[in-house]
Every structure is written in structure tokens, then in C-alpha cells.
């Protein structure tokens, strides 16, 4: 049969079930306990509804058809027939006993369906070929038990009129029923063994599905078995049974449709936690009643109050521990993941970890070494990694993004490759790590701002350097040359005046002397802006500097060349250090050293003066410190009073 032709069928059967149940409720109203009526309605609708849902997604799913069939059969053969039988007996309608006989025959055929469901779940295939035997055994059992039951005089109690009108005297019905029922029951139990075998072999999704199945079956057995015994004790018992019976097909539907499949671990863990708590608290309560009763006597109010208090106190105490234990057993993945995050947070609190380490903690917790944490610093801007670098390029296939939120603000996103089992875990793990994530984000933001400031400072310094070079060139090539030309012109005029004009020649001499002085001034000025000797390298420039110092200076300089701005900065450190040594330190001897250490240019100016200098104190040193910092370097001063001053600048120089 093509699925397209089958498509309306599940819907029709579900409608049929609902209509049959409506009719059954109307017919049997007030003729039997309302529990029985409603219980059956719920049962039929739960089975038919779940079957319908499964078939609407997977039209060929056998379990869906089986559930639907059980629902329809239950509604027609049991409820509708029962209602008609009861009403017929009450109102004197015809065909009452026939309807009642249908009811008698109706429940047994469900057994092979259950056997099949248990064996087929969840893959729609039997665990093995041999398991067909179990199915046929149940069919055979039903075929034998059915006449044994319908024709048995003992089942007459079910008829409104009293005795079974179709009873056959003799031992045959009993024999048939006992043999058939035993076969059927054995088949059903064997089917559960089959499910157990399947569970032990299962992995991944199938295992999760079977866990759902085990959960509801377990609850059904735990609750339904005692319920059969205490059916009449209190109305709560059949109600509980109804809930369990409804839950059973619903969990099958959940498992087959794979809807929130992985929540089963949570449900299982919670169920077990509360089950264990209930047992423990009951024991605590009972023990308290006994002990308190013996101690304070038979004052019941006191004893009850005390025991209740104790149980309540124990609950708070026990709940977390039991939950933790159960989690460890039932949700080991989750327990491990959260422990990893908790351990990291603890180390962070004790200053044993950096907030950026949260990425590694998340990778470890989620078992995804490729997991990335990207911080959203500004909405709309591309997110950045822990180094503040923007994430570029499209995500690799299979990678998913998970936003880390505070309120409605996206703080960060986790980019990872989720697996079925771990997808549900990420939310809890991220929630547990939200504080470290936010700390890391703030640090990234701070670092980026600082980088921006450093960059702009370095740009400004570079611009200033460039400007200085330009002015220096302008002074040398412009003003100075022009003055030399004027001086030459004056000399020429002097020459033209001849031998007679002594006064005019003297005036011109003075003018030329003035011009020479102006040229000298300009040269000094240009030198202060940027020593021309730096073109020849730090060595010549520093030796020149030393030669103009009134204090003896010992120079040792590398012959390596560096970027112009690095050389300029080194030169000015030396120059300023030398000036300070002469002006403030009252030094007799200065040692000036410039050396490369790996990718750092180290400039040191050491004097034997009075010491006691500090960066904060002299504005000259502050300016120098800024100048060094602008190139990403560091300025240090070692200046103990009475032990001289050593100025050390470390300038990064890419080699």
C-alpha cells in the first residue's frame, strides 16, 4: 500500500476512537463507577493519539499502527461494547449479551500487540529472527485462551444478566485458558527480556530511546502491580494506574519521535532522586516517631511535629547530596562537565587561573577541543577572540553558534561542533561559567581599548618624529643654505668695494660674523630636533653626544642598525640621561651602553652621582618615559641614594 493512500486512515481511526469513547461514556454513564469509564477513555485515546502522531511523521511505522490499533480496539471492543451491554441490560435493549461477550473476548487480543511493541521498539525491527517465535507464541496463547475465557462459566460475573449465556460445562475451557494464558504471559515476559537484551547492546540514540521506555515501563510495573491489589482501597489507586497507563504510550511516542530525547536523563535522575528521598525520609520519619514516642511519651501532636521537623530538615540536607550522587550515576557526562567548570571557577576565585582560561574549561567540559568563545564587544561588530582579534571567515561546516546572554544582551557566543548527546549540556555549562565568561569579556574589552590607546600614541609619536625630521631638513637645506648665500653675497660686495672702503668692509665683516653665528645656531637647533649623525647609526651619534659632554663618558654601542624611530628614541634616552647625570646627579663618570638583546634594544645610562632620581619627580624623565612607552618600550630607573643612577630603556626592535 502506498503511503499516500494510507494517509487519511490514521486520522479516521483516531476520530473513530474518540467518537466510540464519547458514545461509550454516554451509554455507560451512571451504570458503572466513573473511574472505570474515564480510565478506559484515557487509555484508548492515549494509545490512538500517540499512534496517530507517530504515523503522521512516519507513515509506515509499525509501532504507530500497533498503538493506534490497540486504541481503536480498546474503544470499540471494550468500551463501546461494554457501554452498550450495560445500557441494554438497564433499558431492556436487544443484543446486550452479545455486546458483553465481545467485551469478554476483547482484552486478550491486545496481548500480541504489546509483545510486538516491546520487541519492535524502538527500531521497528525485532532483536533477531528467532524472536518471531515469541510473537507466534503469544498469538497461539491468545487463540487458545480466548475460547477458554469466553466459554468459561466462571466469567459469568461480568454479565449484567448473571450467568454466562455462552458457558460450556466441563474442564475444557479451564484447561484451554490456563494453557493459553500461560503461553501469552510467558511471551510477554520474554518480550521484556528481549528489550533488556536490546538495551545492553544499544548505544547513542537507541539507548536514549530505550531509557524512556524503561522509565515508563518501570513506573508502570512499580505502580500498576500494587494497584491491582489495592484497586478498591482508595480512588487514588485507579487514578494513578490511569496516569501510568497513559504515560506508557506517550513515552513510547516521545522516544520514537525523538522529541527532547536527551531529557530522559534529567527525568530519570529526578525520578530516582525523589524516589530515594521519599524512602529515606519515610525511614527518618518512622524512626523519629518511634524514638520520640519512646522518649517523650505518647503525646501524639509533639511526636508528629518533631518527626515532621526532622524529616523537613533532613530533606534540605540530603537533597543536594542525593541529587549529586544520582547525577553522577545517571548523567555522568553532565556531572563531569559541570565539575570541570566549577573547578575552574574555584581556581579563578583563588587567583590560580586567568579568566581567559574559561575557553579551555569549556573545551574540556564539552569535549570539543575546537570549541571557540567569541566575545561580542559592540552589538553589530564582528565578535572577537580572547586576543581581541575579530573572527573572520565563515564557520566550518557542522559548527553551531550558541549565544551567551545576560538579559537580552548577547555577551558572547560559543562556536562548537555539537553532538546529539552534548547539545542539551551546553546551556547548563555556559550558565555555570557565565561569570568567568563575563570577566574574560571585560578583560578583552579593556585590553583592546588599551591597545587602541597605545597605537594612537605610537602614531602620534611617529608623526612627531617625521615632523622633526622635516624641520631639520628644512633648516639645513633652507634657512642655513640661504644664510650662507647671503654671506657669500656680502663677501662679494666686500670684494667689489676694493681696497679703499675700510669702514664699509668692517661693517660687512660684522654682518658676515652675525650670519655665521646664525648658521651655527640653526645647526644646533636642527641637531636638537634630530641629530644628523643618527644617519650614520647610534654609535657615531652617541660618541658625538659624549664628545660634547663636560663629564667623561664611556660609550659602547652596537653597530647594528634599527628603525629610524627606534634609533631616535634610543638616542634621546641617552641624551636625556646624560643631561640628567650632568645637571642633577653631579656625576664624575658616565657609562653609556646600547646593545641588542634578542628583539629588544637596551639603552642604559649609568652614572656615579648622588642617585635618588625617580620617573615621577623630574618632568624630563616623565617625558622620556612617555617617549619610550610610545614605541612599546619600558623605562626603568635604578637610583638608590648615594649609589648613582642607572637609566635603562628597553625598546622593542623587530629584527
Amino acid at each position, binding site marked *: 500500500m502506498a503511503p499516500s493512500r494510507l494517509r487519511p486512515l490514521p486520522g479516521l481511526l483516531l476520530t473513530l476512537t474518540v467518537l466510540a469513547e464519547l458514545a461509550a461514556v454516554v451509554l455507560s454513564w451512571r451504570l458503572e463507577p466513573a473511574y472505570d469509564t474515564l480510565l478506559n477513555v484515557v487509555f484508548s485515546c492515549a494509545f490512538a493519539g500517540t499512534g496517530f502522531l507517530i504515523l503522521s511523521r512516519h507513515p509506515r511505522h509499525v509501532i504507530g499502527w500497533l498503538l493506534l490499533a490497540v486504541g481503536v480496539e480498546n474503544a470499540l471492543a471494550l468500551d463501546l461494547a461494554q457501554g452498550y451491554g450495560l445500557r441494554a441490560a438497564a433499558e431492556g435493549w436487544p443484543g446486550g449479551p452479545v455486546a458483553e461477550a465481545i467485551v469478554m473476548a476483547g482484552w486478550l487480543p491486545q496481548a500480541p500487540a504489546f509483545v510486538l511493541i516491546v520487541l519492535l521498539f524502538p527500531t521497528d525491527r525485532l532483536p533477531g529472527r528467532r524472536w518471531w517465535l515469541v510473537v507466534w507464541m503469544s498469538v497461539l496463547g491468545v487463540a487458545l485462551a480466548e475460547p477458554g475465557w469466553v466459554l468459561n462459566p466462571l466469567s459469568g460475573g461480568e454479565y449484567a444478566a448473571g450467568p454466562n449465556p455462552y458457558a460450556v460445562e466441563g474442564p475444557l475451557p479451564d484447561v484451554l485458558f490456563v494453557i493459553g494464558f500461560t503461553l501469552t504471559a510467558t511471551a510477554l515476559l520474554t518480550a521484556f527480556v528481549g528489550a533488556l537484551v536490546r538495551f545492553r547492546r544499544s548505544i547513542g540514540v537507541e539507548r536514549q530511546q530505550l531509557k524512556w521506555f524503561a522509565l515508563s515501563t518501570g513506573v508502570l510495573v512499580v505502580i500498576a502491580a500494587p494497584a491491582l491489589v489495592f484497586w478498591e482501597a482508595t480512588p487514588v489507586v485507579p487514578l494513578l494506574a490511569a496516569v501510568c497507563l497513559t504515560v506508557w504510550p506517550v513515552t513510547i511516542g516521545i522516544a520514537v519521535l525523538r522529541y527532547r530525547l536527551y531529557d530522559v536523563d534529567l527525568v530519570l535522575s529526578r525520578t530516582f532522586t525523589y524516589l530515594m528521598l521519599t524512602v529515606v525520609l519515610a525511614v527518618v520519619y518512622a524512626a523519629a516517631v518511634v524514638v520520640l514516642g519512646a522518649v517523650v511519651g505518647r503525646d501524639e501532636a509533639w511526636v508528629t511535629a518533631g518527626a515532621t521537623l526532622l524529616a523537613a530538615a533532613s530533606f534540605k540536607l540530603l537533597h543536594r547530596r542525593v541529587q549529586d550522587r544520582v547525577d553522577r550515576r545517571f548523567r555522568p557526562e553532565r556531572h563531569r562537565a559541570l565539575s570541570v567548570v566549577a573547578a575552574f571557577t574555584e581556581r579563578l576565585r583563588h587567583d590560580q587561573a586567568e579568566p581567559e582560561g574559561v575557553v579551555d574549561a569549556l573545551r574540556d567540559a564539552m569535549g570539543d577541543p575546537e570549541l571557540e568563545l567569541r566575545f561580542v564587544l559592540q552589538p553589530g561588530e564582528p565578535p572577537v577572540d580572547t586576543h581581541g582579534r575579530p573572527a573572520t571567515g565563515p564557520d566550518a561546516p557542522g559548527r553551531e553558534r550558541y549565544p551567551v546572554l545576560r538579559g537580552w544582551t548577547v555577551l558572547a557566543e560559543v562556536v562548537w561542533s555539537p553532538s546529539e548527546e552534548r547539545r542539551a549540556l551546553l546551556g547548563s555549562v555556559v550558565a555555570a561559567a557565565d561569570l568567568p565568561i563575563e570577566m574574560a569579556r571585560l578583560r578583552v574589552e579593556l585590553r583592546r581599548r588599551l591597545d587602541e590607546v597605545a597605537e594612537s600614541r605610537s602614531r602620534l609619536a611617529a608623526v612627531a618624529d617625521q615632523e622633526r625630521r622635516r624641520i631639520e*631638513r628644512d633648516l*639645513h*637645506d633652507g634657512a*642655513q*643654505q*640661504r*644664510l*650662507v*648665500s647671503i*654671506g*657669500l*653675497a656680502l*663677501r*662679494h660686495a666686500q*670684494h667689489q668695494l676694493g681696497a679703499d672702503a675700510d669702514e664699509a668692509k668692517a661693517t660687512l665683516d660684522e654682518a*658676515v660674523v652675525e*650670519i*655665521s653665528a646664525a*648658521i*651655527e645656531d640653526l*645647526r644646533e637647533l*636642527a*641637531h636638537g630636533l634630530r641629530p*644628523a*649623525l643618527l*644617519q*650614520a*647609526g647610534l*654609535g*657615531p651619534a652617541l*660618541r*658625538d653626544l*659624549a*664628545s660634547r659632554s663636560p663629564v*667623561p*663618558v*664611556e660609550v659602547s654601542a652596537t*653597530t647594528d642598525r634599527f628603525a629610524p624611530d627606534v634609533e631616535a628614541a634610543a638616542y634621546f634616552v641617552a641624551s636625556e640621561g646624560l643631561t640628567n647625570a650632568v645637571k642633577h646627579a653631579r656625576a664624575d*663618570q658616565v657609562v653609556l651602553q646600547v646593545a641588542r638583546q634578542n628583539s629588544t634594544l637596551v639603552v642604559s645610562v649609568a652614572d656615579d652621582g648622588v642617585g635618588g632620581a625617580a620617573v615621577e619627580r623630574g618632568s624630563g624623565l616623565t617625558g622620556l618615559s612617555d617617549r619610550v612607552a610610545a614605541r612599546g618600550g619600558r623605562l626603568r630607573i635604578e637610583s638608590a641614594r648615594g649609589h648613582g643612577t642607572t637609566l635603562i630603556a628597553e625598546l622593542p626592535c623587530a629584527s
Partner: protein
Amino acid sequence: MRVVIAEDQVLLREGLARLFADGGHQVVSTLGDAATVAEVVDQEKPDLVVLDIRMPPTYTDEGARAAREIKDRHPEIGVLLLSQHIETTHAVDLVGRPGFGYLLKDRVLEVEEFLQTAGRVAAGGSALDPTVVGKLVAPAAGSPLARLSDRERRVLELMAEGLTNTAISHRLVLSERTVEAHVRHVLLKLDIPENDEGNRRVLAVLTHLREMHDWS
């Protein structure tokens, strides 16, 4: 004296040309850059070439490179390199060759001295700017230069500038014999082997001073 001048600034170039003309010398060619200097020198075979270090197109060391080329091709032609400030890299390795001089530009304003120096270079002598010499002979701590008397240091400076004993005696208004005595003392104190007059002496002095200063 036949002179070729290469200087990019027009006013200065004309001023220099006039200065040489006023001094009775013949300026055979004036150039605005160093590109054709070597060619012009090949043709004209002047006695002296005056070059600015920084000239177009890059304003770095065009003049110095041209100077080296000329000295290599015509060792007998005097080359006088002018600079706005001291640039040792280009100058120092040429200093000490016969017929080479290196001066700051504003020395031209002392016309008499400048023309004398130019004449000395054209005649195969040496000339080194007093500023450079001053740096070289500045006494560093523990240096043998510290052992020189003021007068001896002055004599050393003039030796390094390229002056002969006679010129030194004129400059310092001393007798030639006194100057000779000073020179001997200087060479002795600096441990420089005594040599004959002229360029070789300048060379020896400069080499010694350079080594002392580790001047690259």
C-alpha cells in the same frame, strides 16, 4: 686654478662661483646636480671640484658618491666636499687620500682661509673641517690625548686638518722649529711612527685618531 662647482642651490652656486672668480680663479663649469659631474670633469680636467653632499634627486649622498668616482678616475684632481653638517659616514673614508677635503659649508664665509684650503686640496693636500677634527681629538677619559698639552692638542688639530708645519707656524704665530718640536712630541705621546711631511702624516694621524675613537 680651474674649478668645477656642483651645488643644487642657485644662490649658493652663484655665490661660490663669484667667490672663486673674485679670488682670481677660473670657474669652468657650474652644475645643479651630481648626475653629469663625472662627465664634465672628464672633459674639463679641472684642478678642483667643489661638491655639495646632498643634491637632487634624493638629497642624501649624491655628492659623496660623485666625489669617490672622481677620485677613483682622476686621483690627481682635488675634490672638496661641502656639507651642511657633519656626516662622517661619507667623508671619513675619503679623508686621507691626497687631494681631498671635507668642510662645513659656512667655512666659505672665511674667504681667505677657504681659498687657501681649496688651493691646498687642488695641490694634492688634505683638508678636514675643524669640527670633525675637534671631535676626533676631544680627550676621552683615559685616552692618550689627555696627556697632550693645550698647545700640542692645537698643533694636532691643525695637523689633522691637513696643514703643513709651515702653515701651522703661520696660523699659531710660532717659529717653524717650535712647531716641529710640538709635532714630534705629539707623535711620540700618541705613539705614531714619525713620518715624512704631508698627506701621509695626516693619514697616520687620522687613522690613529679614528682607531682611538672606534669611529665607524
